[in-house]
């Protein structure tokens, strides 16, 4: 039986304790969150005018890294975009940047105007470039759905997990250990969901035998963080959808292989 207990939660961050799952399963979830969940990012930049101090390439790169809100429910699935099952324009959003400096100024991400009201820069005040009087930047940019496997600008979030620590304290706990535990973990009564296994292992190494730390079997603390493109719930939901899709396509490929092998065997026997 898998048991999940949420320890901390906000719109962009979640931390939970899972029991009864092996590290491999959790790791595949982590890897999907880090490199497979699709988001929108600027991929094509048509620079019409740029006489700022920044090269076109650098400006285009900075534009690409700006996180954009990604309403996954109103966009096609990433597999459909990748396999060409939908019109490529459905996976693309056009934005325009048009700034002329009347006085020294900073070009911010909110100056990107989008064709779709539900797709816009997540943060308004990302400085893109600084302009001196008379300089201007005009560019037409196209954002498309992509995966972080291809480029880090499509990274939707980050996730990690660590073993749930089981801490045994000796009855005569030296003062140096007590203060170390208080400093690193907040209290001598260690909460495994908040104080990491790694930190406790260093306490163990420092306390010669008075603190024993080992890993609880098949119990892990998992956290996931969204980079703002979507809330963390949609991030995890999409991660599970992609993971299931990957497992299903693996099973399909395996079945096909098995059927072909069986057919070849019977052909040989005849």
């Amino acid at each position: 039986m898998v048991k999940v207990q949420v320890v901390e939660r906000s719109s962009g961050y979640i931390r939970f304790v899972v029991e009864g799952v092996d590290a491999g399963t959790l790791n595949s979830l982590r890897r999907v969150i880090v490199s497979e969940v699709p988001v929108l990012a600027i991929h094509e930049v048509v620079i019409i005018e740029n006489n700022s101090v920044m090269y076109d390439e650098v400006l285009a790169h900075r534009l690409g890294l700006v996180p954009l809100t990604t309403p996954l429910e109103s966009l096609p699935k990433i597999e459909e975009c990748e396999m060409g099952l939908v019109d490529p324009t459905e996976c693309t959003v056009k934005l325009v940047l048009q700034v002329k400096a009347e006085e020294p100024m900073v070009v911010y991400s909110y100056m990107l105007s989008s064709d779709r009201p539900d797709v816009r820069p997540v943060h308004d005040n990302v400085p893109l470039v600084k302009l001196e009087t008379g300089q201007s930047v005009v560019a037409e940019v196209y954002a498309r759905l992509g995966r972080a496997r291809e480029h880090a600008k499509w990274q939707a979030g980050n996730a990690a997990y660590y073993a749930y620590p089981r801490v045994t304290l000796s009855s005569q706990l030296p003062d140096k250990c007590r203060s170390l535990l208080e400093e690193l973990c907040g209290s001598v009564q260690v909460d495994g969901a908040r104080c990491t296994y790694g930190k406790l292992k260093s306490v163990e190494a420092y306390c010669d035998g008075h603190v024993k730390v080992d890993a609880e079997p098949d119990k892990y603390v998992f956290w996931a963080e969204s980079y703002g493109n979507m809330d963390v719930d949609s991030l995890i939901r999409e991660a599970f959808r992609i993971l299931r899709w990957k497992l299903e396509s693996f099973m399909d490929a395996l079945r096909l292989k098995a059927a072909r092998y069986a057919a070849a065997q019977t052909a040989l026997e005849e």
Partner: protein
Amino acid sequence: MIVPVRCWTCGRPVAYLWEDFKSRVLAGEHPGRALDALGLRRYCCRRTLMGHVEWIDLLLKFEQRQ
């Protein structure tokens, strides 16, 4: 040259915090406390903001035509 949009290592967007961070530090706040308040937990993101120097201002001096 200008603030990195994302953390070099983990990819978290950091540039939107830069101006807030800068004004807090210039107002005398301890940089570490300021980063805590901005919600940068990992040391990779923290050093990306801490280590940044706004060189673009120097370049812009050559563009001033008066």
